[in-house]
């Protein structure tokens, strides 16, 4: 079923001329087709002006959020690895060699709400890629010894990440901020569960059977490709994939009733780190909340903000300060992070951040500054879309939330409609003391 098609004109040039015309164009300057197969698989094709290259992003709406059973965290990420372990038709060596022959760049990433598999290649190899991907999504087969070996590679990934104190602090923040919801653990999972993965072969098969199903999956094709031809190939190779029946019961996080804190002692020297998380809303493109918090992160904590200029540029007490709004399927954290130059200034920097949060909750922002944020968001988006792989990569993040690129346009409509009062009201609603978790990390002696 084709549910959204735009007239294709010389969009890029029109876009160039009118990014800020009185009636702003949709933020996504490309027409796209969106179609659902009878089995529930969704196909989105975005022909771009960039010749020869095609990017295929396969978005599975399964991430660490879906890891609902205790002791089994990190399985969505483990599957990112296992999916490269092969099928009867394409054992892993043949799969790798085929990708190698076509000169493709291929990898995958796992997040809280999604796992994304991506391949970028020359247009003449589209059928090869779509058929190989269809094969592994439907016929993945790995023996227990291979499973055990791959689980060690996951531990290797944890090990290489573990050298970074920000990773550790992030783990501690989420573990403390959440009591029941699966956002309590990061996409990597708890270390003890990763270490136990080799003993969970049977569970892994159950996990695949639950989530690697068409109704969880969207194929996003961007680049030098024609929607009809792509649909024909997807019908041919993905049409027989069977719909599943599993619906996870994601635990609901109870409202937080008091502020929380956690501290991490890092064994080696490092600068003190601070992360403050406030329970925010679930991603929403039909109310101002997500857009308002995103704008707030920029207004209050970006390099252009008063606080950044004070702490990083003028007083030089911190050398990093940034914030991000939650864009998760379920209520996520509004995060503020800072790196402080002297341990003695940790409390000062924390208090300055808290005072800034308080200020934005009590006062409307300057309308001209809000306008600047709106402009920045639109230009940022335009600047990032400079090749087909980047376009697919951006859209995949939105598709993982709502299964449609339309949500990107909707969110930008929300940005356009934001008022200073929206920002203040949203800050006052979510950035409250009882919604707050403060995580700190300090380094040990050398």
């Amino acid at each position, binding site marked *: 079923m084709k549910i959204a098609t735009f007239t294709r004109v010389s969009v*890029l040039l029109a876009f*160039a001329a009118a*990014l*800020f015309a009185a009636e702003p164009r949709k933020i996504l300057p490309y027409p796209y087709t969106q179609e659902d197969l009878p089995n529930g698989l969704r196909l989105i094709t975005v022909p771009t002006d960039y010749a*020869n*290259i095609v990017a295929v992003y396969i978005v599975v709406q399964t991430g660490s959020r879906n890891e609902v059973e205790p002791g089994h965290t990190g399985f969505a990420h483990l599957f990112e690895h296992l999916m490269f372990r092969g099928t009867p038709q394409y054992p892993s060596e043949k799969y*790798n*060699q085929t990708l*190698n*022959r*076509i*000169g*493709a*760049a*291929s990898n995958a990433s796992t997040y809280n709400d999604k796992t994304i598999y991506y391949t*970028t*290649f*020359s247009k003449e190899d589209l059928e090869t890629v779509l058929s190989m991907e269809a094969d592994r999504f439907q016929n993945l087969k790995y023996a227990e*010894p*291979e*499973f*055990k*070996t*791959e*689980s*060690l*590679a996951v*531990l*290797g*990934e944890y*090990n*290489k990440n*573990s*050298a970074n*104190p920000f990773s550790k602090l992030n783990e501690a923040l989420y573990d403390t901020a959440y009591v029941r919801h699966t956002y309590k653990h990061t996409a990597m999972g708890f270390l003890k569960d990763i270490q136990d993965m*080799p003993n969970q072969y049977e569970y892994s098969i159950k996990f695949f059977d639950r989530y690697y199903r068409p109704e969880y999956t969207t194929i996003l094709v961007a680049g030098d490709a024609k929607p009809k031809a792509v649909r024909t190939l997807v019908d041919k190779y993905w049409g027989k994939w069977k719909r599943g029946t599993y619906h996870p019961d994601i635990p609901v996080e109870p409202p937080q009733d008091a502020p929380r804190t956690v501290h991490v002692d890092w*064994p*080696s*020297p*490092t*600068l003190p780190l601070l992360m403050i998380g406030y329970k925010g809303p679930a991603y929403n493109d039909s109310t101002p909340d997500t857009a308002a918090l995103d704008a707030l992160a920029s207004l209050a904590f*970006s*390099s*252009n903000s008063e606080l950044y*200029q004070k702490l990083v*540029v003028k007083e*030089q007490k911190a*050398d990093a300060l940034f914030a991000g709004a939650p864009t998760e399927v379920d209520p996520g954290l509004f995060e503020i992070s800072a790196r402080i*130059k002297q341990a003695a200034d940790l409390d000062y920097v924390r208090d300055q951040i808290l005072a800034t949060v308080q200020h934005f909750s009590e006062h409307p922002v300057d309308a001209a500054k809000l*306008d600047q944020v709106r*402009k*920045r968001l639109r*230009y940022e988006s*335009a*600047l990032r879309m*400079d*090749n087909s*792989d*980047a376009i697919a990569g951006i859209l995949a993040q939105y598709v993982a939330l709502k299964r449609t690129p339309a949500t990107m346009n909707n969110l930008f409509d929300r940005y356009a409609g934001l008022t200073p009062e929206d920002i203040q009201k949203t800050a006052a609603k979510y950035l409250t003391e009882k919604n707050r978790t403060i995580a700190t990390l300090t380094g040990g002696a*050398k």
Partner: protein
Amino acid sequence: MTPKSCTLFCPSRRLRGRLTAAFFTTLVLGTGAFAQMRAIALPSKSPLVTFRIVFTTGAAADPADKPGLAYLTAQMLGDAGSKDLTYRQIVEAMFPMATSVSVQVDKEMTSFGGTTHIENLEPYYKLLRGMLLEPGWREDDFRRVKDASINAIKVGLRGNNDEELGKEVLYQTIYQDTPYGHYNGGSVGGLEKITLDDVKAFYQAQYTQTRCVLGIAGGYPPQFLDRMKSDFKAALPLNGGFQWRMSQPDAPERTRVEIVDKDTRSVAFSLGYPIAITRAADDYAALLLVSSYLGQHRMSSGVLYGSMREKRGLNYGDYAYIEYFPRGMFLMEPPQNLARHYQIFQVWIRPVEPPTAKFALRLALYQLDQLNRNGMTQEAFERTREFLSKYVNVLTKSKRAELGYAIDSNFYLTNPYNEFLKAQLAKLTLADVNRVIKSYIRTDRLVIAIVSKNGEALKRQLTSDDASPMTYNSPKPQAILDEDKIVERRPLHLKPEDIVVRPVDQVFQ
């Protein structure tokens, strides 16, 4: 290694003959220096305009007692105020345009980059021009960027990223006592010594027209490039004088190991040796093909990846390189504008669990031995050649990347990278590649950089010829177990005097 005598770099007639006339309009002197400012333009109908402004100077021009001067100078241009505008005013002006100026300092290239929407071309260019041509040289900016540069070493490199630390220690050790022999970001002591006057003097001497390459791509207006040229010509001195260059560094007499001792969960390795191959060399494509076969960056197709991660689960990945590739843990594709006259062959072994460290090192060396002994098969040769011939399209997929490669091609005096590499690959034979393997792939006279806790204990392990048997958490095919029996006893030929254990706080100090 001893310091090398200096020789002038002289591009061969063969290379100059290879240039496509329409691509470059540059005048190359017999010394290899350029007689004038260069411009590389890739106009298109895109609504975006990308700048890459490169100066062919960098960390190799740092005074011996002030490593980090090139780096701090570049930061004072790209991350500080201009004569007319404070840093804050620049940040505020760039904010709504979503633009910035990126800074990258390598041994022989310093690059400033940025992309703007065509609607903001004029204001963005005005800011960029002011930053690069009329720097503000304010003391508070200097204090901030200097602190940030010192923390980048103390915290960013030593504290947070064992893998990058290992790679940079590898480079520093290989190039010890040469102009390449220090980290591009300098050392803590060197940075502390540098004054704002040092920075101004370095700028005056090094940022000249003859070292300047103006790169621009996208939908800029027809006269725009001429305006840029005249702006840069008016502001920059013509010539900074002759730039003396070191000659090709030798490998060490014996294999050397540098263990960086720090409290960390796992053991990270990087190993390598200097090679006389750059993109300007005849054997570049052949050696690139060999390194791709051995370990294409962040891909599962390489021999090392297959042997170490896929079959044995030793770690997260294992790769091989013939060009400098910083930040590889964050990047899927190589950054551009890191062109150098000297490169190394490098193997990157991602962190392994401490009990498997010695086996992992032995296995990587065993794979290099095997490659040297057996060469590649016709099938592997053809497959890897097909890969590279197509993958180069992915590497040059954006105008920004294409422009970066074009500037590097100008440095190496080759045709545009995409066309150059495809042509070179098309000419290759298996015999060429296997000859190159015999010449360049070896396991003696290496430098091995390791980041690990309990450095002294690891040193004792590495100097012993004891077996380092692997145990697995699952049954393995007999072929792997048989291979392990060979690998676990592969001699490392290391004596205690070949291994230095250095506490992490002494590295880049």
